């Protein structure tokens, strides 16, 4: 399986995927940054708001997370399907989707206008963490892409 992420000017690797869970009636888009410093795939505050995830009924993660803003205990969104673009055949030019059925992903608290921080204002993406990235054994950088292969 090969997944290709686009690199920005800072060489961060970006990926567009689709996310689905029991709270949604259809899959929704998600902009992910590949983050090897992130243990669990995490939906950041703006995305939790955009995706209209109701956190009130969600459990908290058993272990707190260390972030740049301090320690936080994220919510756990259970049974998530994360669909990512997979390249195949014809010199890897064709694209289909591969769906990762995950027992859970982490959710930061949804954005609240009164508690907006500068950092939150700059985020409209989420983080693809090591729970997924560990599936990929070969990593290769080109000028514009990060190619991940199982």
């Amino acid at each position, binding site marked *: *399986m090969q997944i290709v992420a*686009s690199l920005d000017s*800072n060489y*961060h690797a*970006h990926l*567009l995927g*689709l996310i689905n869970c029991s709270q949604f009636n*259809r*899959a*929704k*888009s998600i*902009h992910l*940054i590949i*983050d090897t*410093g*992130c243990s*669990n*795939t995490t939906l950041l505050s*703006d995305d939790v*708001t*955009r995706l*209209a995830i109701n956190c009130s009924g969600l459990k908290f993660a*058993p*272990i707190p997370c260390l*972030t*740049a803003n301090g320690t936080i205990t994220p919510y756990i969104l259970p049974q998530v399907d994360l*669909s990512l*673009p*997979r390249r195949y055949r014809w010199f890897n030019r064709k*694209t*289909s*989707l*591969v*769906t*990762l*059925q*995950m*027992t*859970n*992903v982490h959710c930061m608290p949804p*954005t609240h*206008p009164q508690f*907006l921080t500068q950092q939150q*204002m*700059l*985020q*409209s993406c989420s*983080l693809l963490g*090591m*729970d*997924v990235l*560990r*599936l990929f054994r070969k990593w290769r950088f080109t000028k514009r892409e990060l190619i991940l292969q*199982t």
Partner: protein
Amino acid sequence: MSADTMSTDAVHVEIKKQTNSPFDKELLKSYRRLREDYLWIFSNAGKLRTTYPDNYIAVENKSVKFSSESMELMLTKIKESGEQVEDFIIEYMSTRRVNFLF
């Protein structure tokens, strides 16, 4: 359908490749449409940052349909117009060059 599994202490991940089912075909069709808009934003980021500085934009069919200073306001605008949030790619057009520390 081929499936592989991988689990950590807390998260179990099962990989399922796409099939020819109507659900999977619709998913791919939806993805391709959204990806067109996503790539359009990336290739026009400079211009969009100038036009919509430090604002969120909602893009559909390679055109900006809504812009707003906050995500909440953006969602309200989309819902009030009768459109569905899921049909848009929403991105924040930051005018400041930032380095990430998550």
